[in-house]
């Protein structure tokens, strides 16, 4: 039963992430997941400190503030350093992450966090922290994960066509009246929400893999967008399942195991892709 909860919740997050990841990949925003996941750390720590316990909703609100702060910081730095967006992003998110790490090390007990949790999450505790909903006992992280999942699915259904057009030909998109900046903001906001939700479970760095590996793997296997989305979804759940049981069998970090499995599956897809290419040529 414990396994079930863990796999369910991580899969909800994983599916959401892989769906958003498809868009992120085409919008060239893959490394923004790195930046966002680092930038929100101070927000999460402060939220946990303020409430004396882990509360995802408050964490989301405060983390969002830091997310916005991070973007403003990047824009400000870019004004001073013309045309160095990568450096501006790097300075901004490493600074915020460093602040977060200091907060964690100084207030570890009050915030119920340590640097290990920050780096690779604590998936295995999911079944043990429960809340009561009427007469049912469910994991604390379930409602937020479920809500995020629904939000993301709605967004993908709503934005599919628009994001496709923006990804393929941005100028055409603008010419038909699509507000590209607005859609960017919506996409990145959802990424932030999902990152906060996944934070406890996967940690700051490995959450990137959840967004990018399934879509990248699917991209190698198909030239049709609908198929890509479906494959991403499947790979996400598959690798979560396999990775989790790998960690049960071998020990070690569950989150890291999942990413390693994702790497292996990606490599297999790469080999297949090359084989198909050499057959065709």
């Amino acid at each position, binding site marked *: 039963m414990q396994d079930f909860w863990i796999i369910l919740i991580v899969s909800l997050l994983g599916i959401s992430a892989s769906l958003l990841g498809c868009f992120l990949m085409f919008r060239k925003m893959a490394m923004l997941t790195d930046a966002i996941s680092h930038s929100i750390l101070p927000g999460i720590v402060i939220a946990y400190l303020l409430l004396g316990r882990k509360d995802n909703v408050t964490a989301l609100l405060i983390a969002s503030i830091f997310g916005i702060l991070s973007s403003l910081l990047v824009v400000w730095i870019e004004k001073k350093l013309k045309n160095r967006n990568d450096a501006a992003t790097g300075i901004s998110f490493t*600074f915020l992450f460093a602040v977060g*790490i200091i907060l964690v090390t100084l207030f570890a007990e009050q915030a119920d966090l340590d640097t290990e949790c920050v780096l690779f999450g604590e998936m295995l505790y999911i079944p043990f922290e429960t809340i009561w909903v009427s007469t049912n006992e469910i994991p604390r992280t379930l409602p937020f994960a479920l809500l995020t999942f629904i939000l993301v699915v709605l967004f993908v259904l709503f934005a599919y066509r628009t994001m496709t057009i923006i990804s393929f030909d941005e100028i055409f998109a603008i010419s038909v009246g699509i507000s590209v900046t607005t859609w960017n903001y919506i996409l990145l906001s959802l990424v932030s929400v999902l990152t906060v939700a996944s934070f406890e479970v996967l940690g700051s760095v490995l959450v990137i893999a959840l967004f990018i590996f399934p879509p990248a793997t699917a991209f190698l296997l198909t030239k049709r967008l609908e198929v890509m989305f479906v494959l991403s979804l499947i790979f996400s759940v598959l690798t979560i399942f396999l990775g989790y049981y790998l960690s049960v069998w071998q020990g070690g970090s569950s989150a*890291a195991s999942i990413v390693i499995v994702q790497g292996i599956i990606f490599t297999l897809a790469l080999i297949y892709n090359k084989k198909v290419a050499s057959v065709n040529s």
Partner: protein
Amino acid sequence: MINFWYVLIGASLIAATAGIVGVWLVLRREALRGDVVSHSVLAGICTAFLAYREKNGWILLLGASVSAWLSLWTMDFLQAHTKLKKDTIMALILSFFFAVGLWILVKIQSLNNSAKSGLDSFLFGKTASLLPQDIFVALIVFFLVAIINLFVKKWLFWATFDEEYSESIGYSVKFVRNIVTFMSIVSIVMGLQAVGVVLMSALLITPATIALVLSPKNLSNTFLWSICVNVFVVLIGTLISYFFPKSPTGPWIVIFCSLLAFGVFAMKKNR
């Protein structure tokens, strides 16, 4: 307080090396690449430790170098053989190598081995863990990088700003890239000891950007500034961290350096 001086000198050498290389990374817009490589070395360090079961500086650094080189090679391979975009590839490499490193790290922690505690310092840095033999390595690396930089500065400059012209006058762009790669790897491997894997890219990028603001036109001065700022922030950061023994040195160095950067930026007019 002999140890204190060793730490001081070692940290300064490490900082100076990072200062030189960081300027090139920023000029060549490879800041994120530096971040990917920095995260990737965790896999190498942990593998090396697992293989040798002791914290031997040379072995760990060798492991770090191997995984740094491997991550760069994989990035180039994927770029050449798939239609995946650059940023996607970087995200994949970063998270995968880091995951491998973390997985091995957790495994190591479950072993009963007294030497394993030193590994944590590679995550976020612990300047105080520098030993006299490390100083020796740091010295060699610094001189290596400084001399290489002195000789190839012109090549790197042309290759960075005008690839076509560079090729036309016989400076191979590919060769130059390999030089920058080599310098990045050794400086990252050294710098880890001060700030750790997770924040290493900050040590490369932030001081260099400060230097570029202070000396935007004269490249030689830029390098000098970068070295000075880097040494300054590493030393001050390490000092600050002494007051907070629960925290590693890396974050304090980065926070101090970033605040310094913001101050310098604020004094500059908008371009």
